[in-house]
């Protein structure tokens, strides 16, 4: 729809229509990973560059109404490739050209090679290199057509895993980790064992290694969980260990430990549910019977007993029911009250 409109109305309108989704996604991305991603300087810069209507693009839009090749044709893709390669052009124009040439990139080996060159070139602006990577990743979805370029693509990514630019390095390692690339996994593991050789922060390395259960990251994650360099690294290590059945005692210990933060204990409860659900039920009961427990952890325990209890485990015992009943009447926390209400409704006597 937007591309049709862009074709009809020329360059300026097209610039505006493309900028819109970026603004929307920024507005919506208030929490979590999306927000963190949008907050990175490079993404911010790229978004701003794309949003800014330039005099040049306006003039070009007016001028190209007559001579510009039709959208989606080989000539249009060639023009985009030329723009993307042209270092004299503004980064915004080059990013836009890289995006536009994605569908046609696989029709011409030279165009594909030129995008790889942009990605590999450390002298290119980071935003342009990241746009090249995005364009290549998008092209790789056409599995059949991408097959012929796959090896070149993987080799190019591997060649820049030690790029001086951290953002490029992280994104490239991410792309390789999603393919369960063994050399990339080895680099990440080496970084965890020898921090001096780390290419990315430990929490990022653990996150990337968690994509493949056979990446052999559990031992490293256990070490980091026991001796965390940062809080974020510990969180990432515990998240990774949530798929390791032998780590159930670690999570039970954390869940019991009142000196741990509520977020970490909540994470442990989630992990226990995945690897030892019976233990979570037992721990949740004990937490609820302890009057000095944190409200957030109590709410998590109530949810575990209300929603995650198996039918064959039967009803909860009378002592617990009466305790939750009293908790519902006395607690100051709205969250606990709400969870307790659901619990009492389910196990109504």
């Amino acid at each position, binding site marked *: 729809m937007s591309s049709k409109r862009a074709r009809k109305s020329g360059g300026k309108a097209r610039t505006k229509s493309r900028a819109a989704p970026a603004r929307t996604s920024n507005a919506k991305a208030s929490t979590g990973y999306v927000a963190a991603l949008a907050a990175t300087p490079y993404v911010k810069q790229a978004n701003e560059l794309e949003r800014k209507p330039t005099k040049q693009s306006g003039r070009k839009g007016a001028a190209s109404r007559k001579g510009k090749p039709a959208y989606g044709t080989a000539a249009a893709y060639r023009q985009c490739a030329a723009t993307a390669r042209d270092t004299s052009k503004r980064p915004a124009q080059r990013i836009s050209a890289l995006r536009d040439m994605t569908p046609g990139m696989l029709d011409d080996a030279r165009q594909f090679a030129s995008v790889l060159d942009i990605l590999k070139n450390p002298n290119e602006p980071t935003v342009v290199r990241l746009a090249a990577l995005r364009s290549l990743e998008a092209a790789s979805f056409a*599995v059949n057509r991408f*097959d012929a370029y*796959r*090896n070149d693509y*993987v*080799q190019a990514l*591997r*060649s820049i895993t030690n790029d001086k630019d951290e953002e490029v390095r992280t994104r490239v390692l991410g792309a390789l980790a999603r393919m*369960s690339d*063994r*050399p990339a*996994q*080895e680099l990440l593991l080496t970084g965890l064992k020898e921090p001096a050789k780390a290419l990315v922060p430990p929490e990022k390395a653990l996150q990337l290694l968690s994509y*493949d*259960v*056979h*990446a*052999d990251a*559990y*031992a490293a994650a256990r070490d980091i969980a026991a001796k965390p360099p940062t809080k974020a690294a510990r969180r990432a290590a515990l998240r990774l260990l949530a*798929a*390791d*059945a*032998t780590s159930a005692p670690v999570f039970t210990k954390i869940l019991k430990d009142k000196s741990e933060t509520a977020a970490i204990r909540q994470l442990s409860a989630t992990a226990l549910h995945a*690897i030892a*659900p019976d233990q979570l039920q037992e721990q949740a009961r004990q937490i609820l019977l302890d009057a000095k427990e944190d409200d957030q952890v109590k709410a998590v325990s109530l949810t575990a007993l209300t929603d995650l209890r198996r039918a*064959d485990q039967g009803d909860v015992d009378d002592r617990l029911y009466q305790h939750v009943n009293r908790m519902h009447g006395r607690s100051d926390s709205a969250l606990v009250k709400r969870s307790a209400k659901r619990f009492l409704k389910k196990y109504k006597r």
Partner: protein
Amino acid sequence: MPLGTCDQTTTEQEFATHVQCVTAAEATEARAELTALLRESHPVYRERSAAAVVRMRGWVLLTLERVGVTDDELVYVLEELDNGHDPYLMAAAARALRTYPTPQPSFLPIVRRALDTIRYGDDEFTLQQYSGYAQSAQATTATRELRATQRWLKACTPARHSCCESASTAGSNADSGARERARARHVPVQGAFEDQHRARVEFSEFFRGKPSVVVFFYTRCDNPQKCSLTVTKLGRLQQLMRDRGLAHRIRTAAITYDPAFDLPHRLRTYAQDRGVQFEANHRVLRATEHWDTLCNYFDLGVNFVGSIVNRHRIELFVLDADGRIAASFERLQWDEEEVLAQAMKLLPGPGDRGGDADRPSTGTSGVGGSVSSATVSTLASLAAAFFPKCAMCWTAYLSVFGIAGLERIPYAPWLLPLFIALMIVNLASLWPGQRGNVLAFALAVAGAQVILVLGIGCEIPIAAPVGLALSTAGSFLAVKSRLAQRRELARQLAFAPAGAADPHR
């Protein structure tokens, strides 16, 4: 340091050096040790990462390329091509296969399958060095190596040799020695399992009394050619058994390698998604105790790093009614028909009333016995044919004899409509449907008409006995035909040939 002493304490560098030292002229012992390194359960792979196992096995395969593949190692090479999904191992296996002295046309389908598998997951390697992901002019890809192997195979002479069958039969014969050893071992009595519905069951309880088909898998396996396909094929095998009425005579079980993670709900979902159906005789199991006993009994081809499987083979076992291993299908893909045929061999025969084919038959044997048995059988058939066996039969007898003897009853006008109704019920019970006897039905209809029209309507005296005879003949034929159908069905269920075509397949 000989290869035989390699274990989990051996470093990868030491391993690479030792393996490289094996030469073609080496003694048989060193050669056997090299082959032993291809077994997944070898101690050298214990507590290694999956990536390390790939590197080490790849190096062994490349050494085989150097020293030449023999019949002993062929199945390991073919296994990698048949079910592998790692490009490095596939490239090494493709190279190694080219050193097999007699190129076989039967390898071609396996190589073609390997090409299909690796198409979207290929990579570049330098096979001249250990763990060769390095980029250099000597780099090759799995596809390139497989194509070279394909060309080599196509160039081979089309004439078939006796050893040509090795590719197709290697799966079932791959580890016959281990099978024999397993036979000699005591059936584990301690193995305890939990099934997909959390029900507890003992090894000696579930695997006794009937033959069983057992496969091994784990839900986190990332190779679509192994666990996922194995469980899907188990679902198809169950369907095949249902189609042939064998579902209650042969048990099936899928046992996970990863009992700590594969909790009942995961097992249930995984198997259900792949078409496996659950019944008392068909379960998905996780060992809750004595995993090592189970591992030793089946001599499982698996190794672990922590609780995660780092490498395993495809393995299916057919157990007899005492839980002993009667046949195994290892490494290469198994065929459902072939497995079912193996399991059916263990079913008790017609004269065997016990549950075990090995037990002495308790049935009558010899010519005299056969004749007397046939006579008794015939008399029994006649008795069965004439004896009223159900409410319908009683109705039929009552209708025929009742309506025929109506004239002799002093006066009972209310009996006439009753007997006519009973006669109609009798006719309805003889309705031939799709598989019934049409002649029997026709005779009964004719008998009814003779009695009603000629006997009661026209009052012809001979009509009643004629109608009675026709109705009786019709009933007799119908009963005989139904008994014959039942016997035929029972015979098909017991002795259905393994190769019998399944209309649904």
